[in-house]
C-alpha cells in the first residue's frame, strides 16, 4: 500500500463547521482514511495538545488544513507552528480565506465589542466593572492567563504563507469529497490557487437568465426577504432580491438559491477578484436601473459594509483604515 498522506486539521478563530464538513463525508470518510493518516486534529477531534504539535519535526505533516481566522495570540502562535510543520497548508473555508462572519467585529473597536458583551448587554451583572484580562492573579495566588484578543482579525495568508484557499461557510461536504479525491490522486493546481471549480454561483444556478431564456433586465426593485417571497423560477436579482451570485464562486451548487434565498458570498470571490465586497458593490450598483432604485437600496440596506463584506471583511482594502476610524455603527 502506498504511504498514507499525513494530514492535520487545526481550528483557529472559527466555529469548526468546516471540520464538520469533513465529518459529513459520512461513510466516505471511512474510505478516505485508507489514504489519509490523521496526525493532528485539535481541539475538536483528536486528543493532541499544542505541545504535541510543537514536538513534531518540521515539514513532517504532508497536508494541513486551518479553519477559522486569526483572532487572538493563541491562533497566531498555533498557525505559525503548524506552518513550520507542514509541507502544504490550506486556508479551509471562508474565515481562514477571507475573515468570515466574525471578522465584522473589525467594524468596531475592541473596546466596543468588550463593553457590549461584558457590560451593556441586558443580562450582564458586572458591578465591579471587570473585564477578561490576559493575565490575572486570583485570590493573590492563582496566576491565570488567557490569550489576548488581537487589535484586528487576520486571514491565514496575512500571517503565514498559504498554499491553497477554499471558500464556503462551510465548504459543502460534496465539494470536500471532490477535494479529498483530488488530493489523494495528487491532482492539485499550482500553489497559491483557490481550489474551486472556477464557476460563479450564477453558472450553476438553475434560474440563470442566460440558460432559461428569461431575458436580462436592469434591476428596478429592491426587496429584503421580509418584504416578499420570490418566484422560484426567476433570477433573484432580477426580482429585486440582492443576490451576490454573479461574483461568488459556485462550489456550493447554488445551495441558498435552491431554497429561494439570495447568496451572500460565502463561497469567496470568482477568480481574478481580490476584494469581494468592492466588486460586489460595483456589480449591484451597475445593474440598477436608475437613481430611484439606488436610493431604495440605500434606504433598505443602510449598513453596506455588513452586507457586501459579510464574509470577507478582512480581505477588504479599506478594512483596517475603517477599524481605526470607526466610532460606532448604527
Amino acid at each position, binding site marked *: 500500500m502506498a504511504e498514507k498522506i499525513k494530514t492535520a486539521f487545526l481550528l483557529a478563530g472559527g466555529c469548526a463547521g468546516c471540520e*464538520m464538513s469533513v465529518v459529513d463525508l459520512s461513510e466516505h470518510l471511512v474510505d478516505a482514511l485508507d489514504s489519509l493518516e490523521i496526525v493532528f486534529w485539535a481541539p475538536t477531534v483528536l486528543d493532541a495538545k499544542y505541545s504535541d504539535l510543537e514536538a513534531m519535526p518540521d515539514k513532517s505533516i504532508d497536508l494541513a488544513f486551518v479553519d477559522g481566522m486569526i483572532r487572538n495570540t493563541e491562533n497566531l502562535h498555533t498557525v505559525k507552528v503548524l506552518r513550520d510543520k507542514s509541507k502544504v497548508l490550506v486556508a479551509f473555508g471562508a474565515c481562514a480565506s477571507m475573515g468570515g462572519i466574525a471578522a465584522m*467585529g473589525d467594524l*468596531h473597536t475592541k473596546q466596543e465589542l468588550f463593553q457590549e458583551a461584558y457590560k451593556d448587554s441586558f443580562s450582564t*451583572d458586572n458591578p465591579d466593572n471587570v473585564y477578561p484580562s490576559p493575565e*490575572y492573579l486570583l485570590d493573590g495566588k492563582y496566576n491565570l492567563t488567557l490569550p489576548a484578543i488581537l487589535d484586528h482579525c487576520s486571514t491565514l495568508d496575512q500571517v503565514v504563507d498559504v498554499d491553497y484557499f477554499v471558500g464556503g*461557510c462551510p465548504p459543502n461536504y460534496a465539494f470536500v469529497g471532490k477535494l479529498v479525491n483530488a488530493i489523494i490522486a495528487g491532482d492539485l493546481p499550482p500553489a497559491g490557487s483557490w481550489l474551486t471549480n472556477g464557476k460563479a454561483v450564477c453558472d450553476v444556478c438553475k434560474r440563470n437568465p442566460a440558460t432559461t431564456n428569461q431575458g436580462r433586465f436592469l434591476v428596478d426593485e429592491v426587496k429584503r426577504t421580509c418584504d416578499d417571497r420570490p418566484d422560484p423560477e426567476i433570477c433573484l436579482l432580477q426580482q429585486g432580491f440582492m443576490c451576490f451570485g454573479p461574483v461568488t464562486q459556485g462550489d456550493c451548487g447554488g445551495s*441558498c438559491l435552491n431554497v*429561494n434565498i439570495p447568496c451572500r458570498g460565502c463561497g469567496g470571490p470568482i477568480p481574478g477578484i481580490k476584494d469581494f465586497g468592492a466588486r460586489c458593490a460595483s456589480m449591484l450598483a451597475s445593474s440598477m436601473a436608475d437613481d430611484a432604485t439606488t436610493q431604495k437600496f440605500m434606504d433598505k440596506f443602510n449598513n453596506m459594509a455588513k452586507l457586501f463584506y459579510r464574509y470577507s471583511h478582512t480581505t477588504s482594502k479599506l478594512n483596517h483604515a475603517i477599524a481605526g476610524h470607526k466610532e460606532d455603527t448604527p
Partner: protein
Amino acid sequence: MKKIEINPITRLEGHGKIAIFLDDSGNVDDAFFQTVEFRGYEKFLQGMPIEEVPRTVSTICGVCRGVHFTAAMKAVDQVFGVTPPPAGRKLRELFFNAHYVEDHTVVLYALGFPDFVVGPEASPAERNVVGLINAVGADVGREVLRKRGLAVKIFELLGGKPSHAVSAIPGGWSKKLSEEERKQVEAWSQELVELGELTLKIFDDVVLKNDKYMELVTGDTYKVEVGYMGSVDPQGLGTFYHGTQKVIDSDGKLIGTFEGKEYLDFIAERVKPWTYLKFPYQKKIGPWKGIVEGPGTNIFAVGPLARMNVIEGMSTPIAQKHFEKFHATFGAKPVHHILAYHWARAIEMLSAAEKCLELSRDPEITSNEIWTKPTSCTGEGVGIIEASRGTLIHHYLTDEKGIVTKANLIVSTTHNNGPINLAVKKAARHFIKNGDVSPSILNYVEMSFRPYDLCLACATHTVTGGQSPLEIEIFDKDGKLYKRLKNF
C-alpha cells in the same frame, strides 16, 4: 505553587483550557476551566437587517449548526409580529429535530464514545473517532456515519445548506416540501429511529452492563449538585423547538417557569476576569453566591441531563420507555451524576428521530402555506429554544425598519460554565495525587467537562487488546433481523 495547564482541552468545539494548581505535596489546591476565545457577536450584529441574523448567528457554532439559526428565527417572527402557518412551523421542527439527531450522534460517537470504547488511558493517538472506527470495525463505523449522514441530508434539503442554513424567513420557511421529498424524508427518518435504537443498544452493552462503569456513573466523583433548567410542553413533557422554561433548584424544588423576555427576571450573568465566558446564575434564588454547589446554590445546569430532571416524560413512545429506565436506575430526582448526560443524550437522539418520522408522516407538512407575510415591525423579539446542549436565548431590539440596534445572547454552554468549573475542580482533586499528572490522569480530568458540552467520558478501565469485540444487530420495524455487524 506548581501550575499545570491542559491546553487545549480537546474533543469539544471551540477553545478552552484547564489550569490546575498543586500544593507542595503535589495534591490539587484548586482548578479552573477557562474559555479562551471571544468574538463579539452582540456588537457587530447591530446595523444588520434582522431577517439576515439567523443565517449570520448560525456561525457562532459549526457543530451545533442548527441552534443559533433556530433561536434567532423565532425572535425574528416576534420582531415582525408574525406566526408561521402550521406547515411552516412543522418544517422548522422537522429541520430542528434532524439537527438534533446528527448533532447528538457526532457528540456520542466522534467526541464522547472514544473515551470508553477505545479507553480513557489509551494512547491519545488512538482515542478519537479514527480509533473508534478501528475498535468497532469499519463496517459498524461506516453504517453509523451513513445513517447520521441521512439526518444531515434532511437538514440540507430543508435548510438549503448542510450547515449554517438559510431557509428561515420572518413568519415561516422558504423551502416547500414536495410529496416526493416527503417520502424520501420518511424513509430516511425510519433509518434515524434505527440509529437511535442502535445507539442505546451500544450504550446498554458497553456501559450499563459494565459494573465498573456503572459504579463511576452512579458514584460521587462525577457528581455536581446544582439547579436545572429546560423546556416543557403544556403536558410537562420534553420539547426542543418551543416550550415554557422550567427552573428547579438543586433539591428539585420548582423555582418558577418563564417565557420570552421574562428570562431577565430569572437569569443574570456574572463576569470574571480570568475567562472570556460569563457565569449565569438564578436571580430568583438570590444574588450572586459564587461558583458553589449544594443546597442554596444559584448555579444551574442545562442540556440533556437538565432536561431529564425537569420534564415529566418524553413526547415520543420508544424514548419514553428509555426515560423510565433512566429514572428507575438513579431513583431520586434530580439526577446530579454528570456522566448520565451521555445516556440522556442517547435517549434524546432517539426521541428526535421519532419526531422526524412523525412529522414526515404528517399530511400537512407538504402544504403550500408555509409563510405568513409580515405587515409591521414591533421592534423586539426573544427566541428561546432547547438547543442540543441546553437552553439558548436570543434577544434582539430593532429600529422601525427591522435593523438591529441591540442583541443579547445567552448560549447553552455559558449556562453550564459554573457547573463545568465545579466538575473540573472535583475531578482534579480526586484523580491527581502526589504530583502524578500523567496524560491518562489528565484525560480523566478532561472527562469532567465533556458531558456538559460535547461528550461523555465514561471511564474506569481501559479496553485491552486494541479492539473490543462488539456485535450489533439491527432490526427492521417488524422486528426482523436486518443486518448483523461485528468486528471479530
